């Protein structure tokens, strides 16, 4: 039986506090989002700054940067992902246990940023792994990372363990791995994971 917010509020006035399994599960999850400790480029400096005392990521329970993907919940892709690095990033993502989340931090990890025209820069990590929160900026300030984390926490709060909209890792048909690209003759192969990302349709003709 679902308890609406009004009844919950009435019960609280009488000293009865109730919650749902899902609510307490999500609360536990969102209060301890442990990031994977790795930085790819200059955005990592802002990420370090966010973790230090001035910005204090610990306020959100996310200060425990884990050096092993096996203990991490959140991957902060902080910086330019080169094509040389992309397979490693995807493999690390695959090695993280579910539930796992990704924040793409900065213009580079979203789209390649200022290096978009570069032959060796991946045009966005969302071509290979599902990104939950994108933070624009070059680099984004620590406040932006904090905002992204709070955004992610709101997302976790609204996750469902059962029903049609449940999170993908409780779906048995959902694959455990995302395809790790390999170095091809000219580009990474495959150039993107179609299950995660679809290239834009190019409209040819008169503008």
């Amino acid at each position, binding site marked *: 039986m679902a308890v609406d917010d009004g009844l919950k509020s009435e019960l609280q006035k009488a000293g009865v506090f109730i919650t749902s399994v899902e609510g307490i*599960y999500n609360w536990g999850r969102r209060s301890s989002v442990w990031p994977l400790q790795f930085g790819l480029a200059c955005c990592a400096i802002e990420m370090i700054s966010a973790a230090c005392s001035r910005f204090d990521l610990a306020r959100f329970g996310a200060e425990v940067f884990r050096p*092993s*993907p*096996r203990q991490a919940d959140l991957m902060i892709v902080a910086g330019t992902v080169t094509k040389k690095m992309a*397979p*490693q*990033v995807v*493999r*690390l993502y*695959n*090695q993280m*246990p*579910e*539930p796992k989340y990704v924040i793409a931090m900065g213009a580079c990890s979203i789209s390649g940023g200022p290096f978009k025209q570069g032959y060796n820069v991946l045009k966005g990590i969302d071509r290979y792994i599902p990104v939950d929160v994108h933070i624009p900026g070059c680099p984004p300030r620590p406040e932006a990372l904090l905002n992204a984390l709070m955004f992610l926490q709101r997302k976790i709060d609204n996750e469902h363990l059962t029903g049609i909209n449940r999170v993908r*890792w*409780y779906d048995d048909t*959902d694959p*455990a*791995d995302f395809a*790790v690209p390999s170095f091809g003759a000219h580009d990474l192969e495959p150039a993107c994971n179609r299950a995660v990302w679809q290239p834009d349709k190019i409209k040819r003709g008169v503008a």
Partner: protein
Amino acid sequence: MPSYEYSYLLICVLMLAAFGFAAAPLVISAAVRPRKPSLIKQNIFECGLDSKGDSWVQFKVQYYVYALIFVIFDLETVFLLPWAVAFNKLGLFAFVEMLVFLIVLVGGLVWAWGKGVLEWK
């Protein structure tokens, strides 16, 4: 007044509570965790690169022996330096003490040398 058995009962309750406290998170997380095993996830090393070989790597035992012998020199430095700095104030007793200390350490070194530890094969 509580009986003798009663105080043991309290200890039992405390032990049960302690066990439950440790076991509950394990049981709960085993019950609610998503099950998504995969080959990449079960790699030996949680590194971005492909794992090569297995985790039962054999190191040459001489590394350990060498490290142990190094401790002799390490300790010597730690004690010799303050002793040398304060040498003028310490007098004969400290000098003899340090000699004894050095003899003990050198004795160990000579023994190891005789065993052939210093030869790297």
